[in-house]
């Protein structure tokens, strides 16, 4: 996994709340068995509308999404994270994220930075006024900077550490192989098996 220290890019305002993972990527795109190429499914229904924010010329090439509260609700599909990443997003900013989506993002290397809704509103105004505004997402300092705005964001300590180190979860867990073996040996005999 790529290390994430600081990201600098332009941002798109997504003025919607409760953006569920069915909107981020509809189920029809989930039938693929590959891990890449999901960018065409990102917000597929909304992108049919020429006025949708990501279709507007001034928001091409964005890498930061500034969304309304409760982003990523619904289905656990990790494809939602892949679609955002394949499209070019490195960071999503929102005042609240759904748990599974947030977990999936951390594992996939997409930063979900949580800021209060008033910071989101301020960011919306800044990037709508000037879409070329350079937005800095500094994971080291847990800070987002855009124009005159400087705001701290919340991110889980452990997720931050993993993102900054670019570490793979399975590799970390396998360092605990001895404990897993010991735990397994102590499991009660009444627990079921599938075979």
């Amino acid at each position: 996994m790529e290390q994430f220290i600081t990201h600098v890019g332009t941002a798109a305002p997504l003025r919607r709340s409760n953006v569920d993972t069915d909107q981020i990527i509809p189920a029809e795109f989930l039938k693929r068995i590959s891990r890449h190429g999901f960018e065409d499914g990102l917000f597929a229904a909304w992108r049919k509308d020429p006025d949708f924010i990501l279709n507007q010329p001034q928001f091409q090439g964005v890498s930061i999404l500034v969304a309304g509260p409760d982003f990523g609700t619904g289905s656990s599909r990790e494809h939602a994270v892949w679609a955002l990443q394949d499209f070019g997003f490195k960071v999503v900013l929102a005042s609240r994220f759904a748990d599974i989506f947030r977990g999936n993002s951390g594992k996939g290397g997409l930063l979900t930075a949580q800021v209060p809704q008033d910071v989101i509103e301020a960011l919306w105004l800044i990037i709508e006024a000037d879409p070329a505004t350079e937005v800095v997402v500094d994971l080291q300092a847990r800070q987002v900077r855009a124009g005159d705005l400087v705001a701290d964001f919340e991110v889980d300590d452990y997720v931050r550490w993993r993102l900054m180190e670019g570490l793979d979860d399975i590799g970390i867990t396998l360092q605990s192989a001895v404990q897993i073996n010991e735990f397994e040996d102590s499991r009660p005999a009444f627990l079921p098996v599938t075979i």
Partner: protein
Amino acid sequence: MGRTLAEKVWQAHVVRHAEGEPDLLYIDLHLVHEVTSPQAFDGLRAAGRTVRRPDLTLATEDHNVPTLDIDKPITDPISRAQLEALRVNCAEFGVPVYSLGDTEQGIVHVVGPQLGLTQPGMTVVCGDSHTSTHGAFGALAFGIGTSEVEHVLATQTLPLKPFKTMAITVEGELPAGVSAKDVTLAVIAKIGTGGGQGYVLEYRGSAIRSLSMEGRMTLCNMSIEAGARAGMVAPDSTTYDYLKGRDRAPQGALWDEAVAYWSSLPSDDDAIFDAEVFIDAATLSPFVTWGTNPGQGLPLSSVVPSPADASNEVDRVAIERALEYMDLTPGTPLRQIPIDTVFVGSCTNGRIEDLRAVADVLRGRRVADSVRMLVVPGSVRVRLQAESEGLGEVFTAAGAEWRQAGCSMCLAMNPDKLAPGERSASTSNRNFEGRQGPGGRTHLVSPAVAAATAVAGHLASPSDLA
């Protein structure tokens, strides 16, 4: 200090604890389906890893499978590729799989419990958010993403930060005609789609205790729609009666040992929850959704809300947008909303008890000419049981289509879809835009309301029928 049910199950599965890091939890049961697993198996292959415990892993084909002509080749090439990938992966890694045509095939969250694989006190995961269903047994069960699927396949563990706990107490007797689905839609409307974020919900109180296992599964299933990671109900005699004698339930001395352990799991009297919600059962009535998320629900006796009712700008915009998508006018009585499609099924309401509730309404009645009604059992076993009780005949005699098992129109990955502009009353779990087909409109309802709606041609409860 006392501990909650969730805390007890959590603590019994900690493999490794270190300050400032997530706990490493052991996973007792890992359920797998064709949609969220191909990339996980690929990851194992790429890293030269194996499945650590195939005997604690079970795969079923559900999301993509057709519900008609299941003996013929699947026509959608991508669906076929995904099902074939699952079969190849399971064969290569030694994971048992129930494929289309197998008598044990069905929706992953129906199959686990009916086999007796889901038991109190277990940790259960699946690459599917509705894994919360299994919490009905007092298991800690939650959905995970594909990279976590890979992680569990490789290590049988998962690094997790502890959840907070929320008690949802429903006290009193549920009024006649109020089912678990109505309770859950009322809970979500009360706490919101984000209200459960970061929490494991524990459903408590006399109304919950009175629910069957099927009802408890419906309730826990929808916990994710309140944003919660999991929902749980403490095990009791209803749980034990359901489990006893099932294929994978413990037998003989092991049964007694298991029950002794299970009986220690309910939350202690002095346990403290991080949050509490109280609902008076007597205030509940049949609930339906009017909008595009499961929190946008109201009693069936209500009218379509107005954006002007919103308490803040974010909600106002959300209501406005939902009404536009749903093509509804504020002030319209919900009972006057015409419905053209009725879907009965899904991991929420595709069990035998749900089908019985539907048959009780349809018996001796006809589905309205303007309505297409699909009844899709949650598993092959449910289908066979329903047939043995004569329910299949009730459905077909009423003019409904009686299909084969699968996820079907809940998420429309197979050919069962709404056409643009069609409007369904659906016993499933999500009314998101396009969920049941692009441009389709969904009203979430209980099985009894679905059946009454099919007869009436508009949203209705059984008491509305002559």
